């Protein structure tokens, strides 16, 4: 169990201050979008930054599973997943089928929402404001602006502050993560290479993120100002990360996780939880594997429990997997949307 410097409430106060400093920051010449945050002065209010940043906290220590139908969603819930992510095709199949990958069929998402009690998330294409509006109308619990789908806007991400539903975004390093947070993301997914069953890229990016955060601590203030400009985010956000020594919102690992050991390793590297995609439903033992990954994620500090989880599955039934080195540069999904 990790303990941090600041409470959730203090972190949220920072985000509200950030919006108050908006004009000052603009005058400093930092090209950043800073939100108009809705703040409830008294009474009851939905969809505030506080409410959106709070939701992912209840996913911590948990596993979010990619599903394509009600049957898979039921398997995920029974296994103890904390949420499901509905997609049209699993990343492995996106890779195989080619063509344009879009958001899932709303009818299927709705069926899933009506059949399970845990949260339901769904993916939209990067920059596709209207796929997101549709999912918000449908009432999904979280929207993933995902590089697994074909990006709709090559230049911009969605302005997530405009939505009442929280967003999760991918990132490979601190700069990407902070830009997404500044755009209003409520949760970060450290990107691996999805649909490969190969965890190496997820490890690489988690380590890059960790070392970039650690490095901030040893820097002079003027160098952190420089970093903020390089990352194209407000300096205050960089200061907050320096103080916390972690991202100010929840960060999960994703992309290539296929076994309980993979999941435990990502937790050990500092992830707050795990996204599992093709790893479960492209294996030959999805139900057992789902349970095993949940067990290993929640108990990663205990190797003997992770061992027990690993024994619940067999390597013979793991998904085949793809060596990243055999992929052509244009086949990489992680490089989309920086």
């Amino acid at each position, binding site marked *: 169990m990790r303990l941090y410097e600041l409470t959730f409430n203090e972190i949220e106060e920072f985000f509200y201050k950030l919006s108050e400093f908006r004009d000052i920051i603009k005058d400093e010449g930092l090209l950043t979008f800073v939100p108009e945050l809705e703040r409830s002065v*008294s009474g009851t209010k939905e969809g505030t930054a506080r409410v959106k940043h709070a939701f992912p906290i209840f996913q911590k220590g948990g596993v979010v599973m990619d599903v394509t139908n009600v049957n898979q969603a039921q398997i995920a819930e029974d296994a103890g997943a*904390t949420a499901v992510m509905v997609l049209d095709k699993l990343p492995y199949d996106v890779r195989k089928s080619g063509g344009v990958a879009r958001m899932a069929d709303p009818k299927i998402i709705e069926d899933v929402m009506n059949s399970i*009690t845990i*949260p339901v998330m769904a993916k939209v294409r990067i920059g596709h404001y209207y796929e997101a509006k549709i999912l*918000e109308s449908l009432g999904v619990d979280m929207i993933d602006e995902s590089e697994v789908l074909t990006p709709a806007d090559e230049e911009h991400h969605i302005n997530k502050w405009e939505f009442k539903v929280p967003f999760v975004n991918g990132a490979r390093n601190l700069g990407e993560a902070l830009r997404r947070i500044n755009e209003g993301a409520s949760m970060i997914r450290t990107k691996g290479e999805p649909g490969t069953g190969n965890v190496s890229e997820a490890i690489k990016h988690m380590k890059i993120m960790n070392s970039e955060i650690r490095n901030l601590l040893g820097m002079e203030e003027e160098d952190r100002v420089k970093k903020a400009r390089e990352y194209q985010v407000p300096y205050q956000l960089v200061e907050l990360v320096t103080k916390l020594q972690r991202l100010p919102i929840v960060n999960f690992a994703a992309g290539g996780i296929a076994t309980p050991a993979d999941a435990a390793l990502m937790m050990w590297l500092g992830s707050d939880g795990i996204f599992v995609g093709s790893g479960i439903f492209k294996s030959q033992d999805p139900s057992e594997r789902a349970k095993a990954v949940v067990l290993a994620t929640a108990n990663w500090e205990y190797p003997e429990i992770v061992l027990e989880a690993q024994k619940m599955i067999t390597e013979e039934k793991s998904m085949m997997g793809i060596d990243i080195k055999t992929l052509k540069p244009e086949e990489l999904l992680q490089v989309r949307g920086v």
Partner: protein
Amino acid sequence: MKVGILAYQGSFEEHALQTKLAIDKLHLNADVVPVKKPSELNVVDGIILPGGESTTIGIMAQKLGVLDTLKDKISSGLPVLGTCAGAIMLAKEVSDAKVGKKSQPLIGLMDTTIIRNYYGRQRESFETTLDFSTIGGSTAKVVFIRAPAITKTWGKAKELLSLGDNKVMVQEDNMLATTFHPELSSTTIVHEYFLSIIKK
């Protein structure tokens, strides 16, 4: 004094930090420890069941053999604070607003009826201000995230705080349940109140 936090999943880190702040405020000589195994339950004087997914926490507690030990200890007087998912785990009667009754591993000791996802989905999650004067605090902002509602209490369960028609904080002897998240609030009053139950 040792305060345990069931730490498989959910807002366990936030509870730990908030409990530490409450301990400091009350100048108590106390520790906060994570609990995942039955043996770790033997050393605590009180236990917090955090917010998260009640199905996940229940499945995990059952799998690791914590659920039954926890049930025994709470029924013989171990102080417990259950928030959101934790409040669901404590209730005797649980159903879901949309899906209805589903079987899930629970503790089921409190004389309460609780309805999961009562207010709707995440889009309907909200922040509001509650008045904590009944337990010695002032007003503070709290969040309700896909929150359940305690729609009925009987027996020895008594309401401490309500919001509209529903009870949001209920106590039954050594058991305390909230449907909001005191661990994400600016006030430590709920944790202070829980510490005072442990001290008794």
